[in-house]
C-alpha cells in the first residue's frame, strides 16, 4: 500500500488515471479543472504517454474517440460549458460502443455561468446529454480519496460494458486538498478484439461506427445496448448509506452536497431527530432500489443539490412519491451550509 | 492483343470510359440493361483495343479489368 499524499482533487484524478493505465489525455483549458490538464502535461511526456492540448473541446473529445477506437484507455476533462461542447463526441462514443472517461468538474450555468462549484449538469450527465438514446456510467466523488478511487473504477466499468463513463465532480472537490492513498499501478486491462489497430491481413476489417441507415438495424443496436445498460443497472449501483436504517428523514445528496449533508445529519441526531444520509456514488445507475426500500420506513426525504432541483426527480421516481420529498438547494456556485440543511431536516420533521 | 473485361453487373453506365477511349471502341449499350437497371458499357471491337487502360482509369466503379 502506498503512503498518503496531500493532493488536489483534480490532480488525484490525473494520477489515478495514469495508474489505471491511461496514457492518452486530450483537453482544452477551462476553470475549474485546469490542474488536471496541467498535471497530465507534466507527467505524460515522462512516461511515454500523450498529452495534447486540442484546439477545442470538440476536437479533444474526437481525439478521445480515435484513441478509444484503438482500444487504449483514454480520457478528457473539462467543466460544464466545455462538457456541453463535448456532447456530440460523447454521443458518437456511446453510439460506437467505445469505452472512455470524461471528467466534468462542474461549475454554475447556464451559459457561461460562473466558475464556482455546481451540480447543475446532473440532467445532462444522467439523462443523455447529447442526441440519441444512451447512458454514461456516472460516478460522483465526494472527496479527494474518492476522486482517485472512482477514476480507476470508471475505466474498469467503461471497458467492461463498452460505454463511456463520467466522473461528475464539482469545483469544490476538484480544488480541495486532502490526504489521499493513491491506488497501486495495476490496471485491469482486457482484450478488445473490436479495436482498430490494423488488420495485419489476418482478419476482416474492424469498423468503429455509429451509422445504421436501416431502421431495423439501428433499432436492434439500440435494444442490444439497453440490454447492456440493464446489466449495469443490476450490477453497478453504488451508494453510501449513513444512519438510514431507522431514519425518519432521509437526506439524499451526492458530491460536495453530501459532505455538507452528513454534518447536518450528525447535528440532527444530536438534536434527537432520526436523520440519515443516502449518498448515491453512481447517479447513473441511480440507487433506485435502496431508496425504494427506505420509502417504506422513512417518513420524508430531502434532496440536497447545488442546482434548481434535478436529482429530486430521480428520488421521487425511486420512491414512487410514497413519501414527501423536499428540495434543499443553492445554485450559481453557492453551497448550502450544514445549518441550512439541518433547518430543512427540522422543518420536515415537523411536517411529517 | 489486349483484353478488356467488364464486370457488367456493377456498371452504372456513366460513360466516362467511353469518353476516355482513344480508339472510340466503347459504347453504352442502350439496348441492354443490367441488374442495377443501367445500360452498361461494352466494347464494339476488341481487335482495335491497345490495352491503354484509359477506360479503367476513368471508371469510378472498378468495372473494368485490362489484360495485355
Amino acid at each position, binding site marked *: 500500500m502506498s503512503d498518503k499524499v496531500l493532493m488536489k482533487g483534480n490532480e488525484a484524478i490525473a494520477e489515478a488515471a495514469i495508474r489505471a493505465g491511461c496514457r492518452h489525455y486530450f483537453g482544452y483549458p477551462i476553470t475549474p479543472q485546469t490542474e488536471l490538464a496541467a498535471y497530465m502535461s507534466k507527467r505524460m511526456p515522462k512516461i511515454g504517454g*500523450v498529452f495534447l492540448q486540442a484546439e477545442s473541446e470538440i476536437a479533444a473529445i474526437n481525439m478521445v*474517440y*480515435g484513441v478509444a477506437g484503438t482500444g*487504449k484507455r483514454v480520457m478528457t476533462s473539462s467543466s460544464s460549458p466545455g462538457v456541453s461542447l463535448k456532447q456530440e463526441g460523447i454521443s458518437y462514443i456511446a453510439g460506437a460502443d467505445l469505452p472512455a472517461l470524461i471528467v466534468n468538474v462542474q461549475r454554475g450555468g447556464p451559459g457561461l455561468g460562473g466558475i464556482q462549484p455546481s451540480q447543475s449538469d446532473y440532467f445532462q450527465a444522467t439523462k443523455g446529454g447529447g442526441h440519441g438514446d444512451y447512458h454514461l456510467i456516472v460516478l460522483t466523488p465526494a472527496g479527494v480519496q474518492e476522486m482517485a478511487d472512482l477514476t480507476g473504477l470508471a475505466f474498469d466499468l467503461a471497458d467492461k460494458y463498452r460505454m463511456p463513463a463520467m466522473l461528475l465532480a464539482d469545483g469544490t472537490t476538484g480544488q480541495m486538498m486532502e490526504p489521499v492513498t493513491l491506488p497501486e499501478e495495476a490496471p485491469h486491462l482486457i482484450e478488445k478484439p473490436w479495436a482498430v489497430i490494423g488488420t495485419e*491481413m489476418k482478419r476482416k476489417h474492424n469498423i468503429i*461506427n455509429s451509422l445504421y441507415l436501416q431502421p431495423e438495424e439501428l433499432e436492434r443496436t439500440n435494444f442490444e445496448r439497453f440490454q447492456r445498460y440493464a446489466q449495469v443497472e443490476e450490477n453497478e449501483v453504488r451508494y453510501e448509506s449513513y444512519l438510514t436504517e431507522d431514519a425518519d428523514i432521509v437526506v439524499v445528496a451526492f458530491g460536495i452536497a453530501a459532505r455538507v449533508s452528513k454534518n447536518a445529519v450528525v447535528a440532527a441526531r444530536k438534536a434527537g431527530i432520526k436523520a440519515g444520509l443516502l449518498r448515491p456514488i453512481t447517479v447513473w445507475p441511480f440507487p433506485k432500489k435502496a431508496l425504494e426500500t427506505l420509502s417504506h420506513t422513512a417518513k420524508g426525504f430531502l434532496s440536497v443539490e447545488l442546482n434548481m432541483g434535478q436529482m429530486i426527480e430521480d428520488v421521487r421516481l425511486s420512491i414512487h412519491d410514497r413519501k414527501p420529498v423536499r428540495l434543499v438547494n443553492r445554485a450559481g456556485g453557492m453551497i448550502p451550509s450544514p445549518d441550512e440543511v439541518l433547518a430543512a431536516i427540522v422543518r420536515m420533521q415537523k411536517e411529517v | 492483343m489486349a483484353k478488356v473485361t467488364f464486370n457488367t453487373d456493377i456498371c452504372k453506365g456513366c460513360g466516362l470510359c467511353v469518353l476516355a477511349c482513344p480508339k472510340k471502341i466503347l459504347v453504352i449499350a442502350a439496348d441492354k440493361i443490367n441488374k442495377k437497371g443501367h445500360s452498361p458499357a461494352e466494347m464494339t471491337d476488341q481487335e482495335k483495343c491497345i490495352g491503354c*487502360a484509359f477506360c479503367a*482509369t476513368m471508371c469510378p*466503379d472498378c468495372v473494368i479489368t485490362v*489484360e495485355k
Partner: protein
Amino acid sequence: MIVFQKPKSLTDAELHYCPGCTHGIIHRLVAEAIDTLGIEGKTIGVAPVGCAVMAYNYFACDMVEAAHGRAPAVATGLKRSLPENVIFTYQGDGDLASIGMAETVHAATRNENITVVFVNNAIYGMTGGQMAPTSLPGQVTQTSPYGRDVAVAGYPIRVCEMISKLDGPEYVARVAVNNVKNVKAAGKAILKAFQNQIEGKGFSLIEVVSSCPTNWGLTPEKALQWVDEKMIPYYPLGVYKDRSAEVTEK
C-alpha cells in the same frame, strides 16, 4: 498479364455513388496507394460525414466513421495511439472546409503525421446539393438558388492556398480527376502523401477537384467539362507546399 484491375484494398462492396461521380476514382487511387506501399494491414482510414460516409464499407483496412468535420481530430487520436500505423482521412468540402475547418487547420499546424484526402466538388452532395464553402461565385445550388452571391455568402475557400501558408504541414497539393492525365497525376500525389507519412514527414493534404453530376444537374461528361472550365480556373492545380523539396533546394 493484367495491366489494370480493382485494387485489393477495396472490398467487394458496390459503391453507392451516383453514376459518373468521381468519388469512385478517388477511392481507387487511395486503395492503389495502399496496395503499392503494401500497407493495408496497418492502415486505418477515417470516413467523413457526407457522400463518402460509407467509405468504411469500401476500404478493406480498419476504418472509423467520424462525426461531421472531426476526422482530423479522430485521426490525431488514432495516430497518437498507433504511431507506427498509417492513418488517413477522406473528407468532402463541407466536412473539411466548413464544419471541420478548425480540426483541419490545427492538424495541419501540428504537422500531425497523417494523410488527408480532401474531395472538393463545390457542393453538399449527400444532403441534396446545398451551397458548400467551396461553391463558386454565382454557382446555383439548392441554398443559393440565385447563384452564390459573395456579398451575402462570402467567397469560396481555397483550402490549399490557405493551409500551405502554415508552417506546420509537409505537403499540400491540388489535383483533379477529370481526365486520364489528371487522374494519373492525382494518383502520384496521393501515393506521395502516404509515403510522406511512412517516412515520418508529417501532415499531407491532397485536394482533389471532383465532380458531382447529380447535384450540378449535368451529365457525367458535362460535369467533367465543368471541372475543366469552371473549377480548375478557380482552384488551380499544383503543389502548394512540399517542405522536403524546399529543403533539398536550399
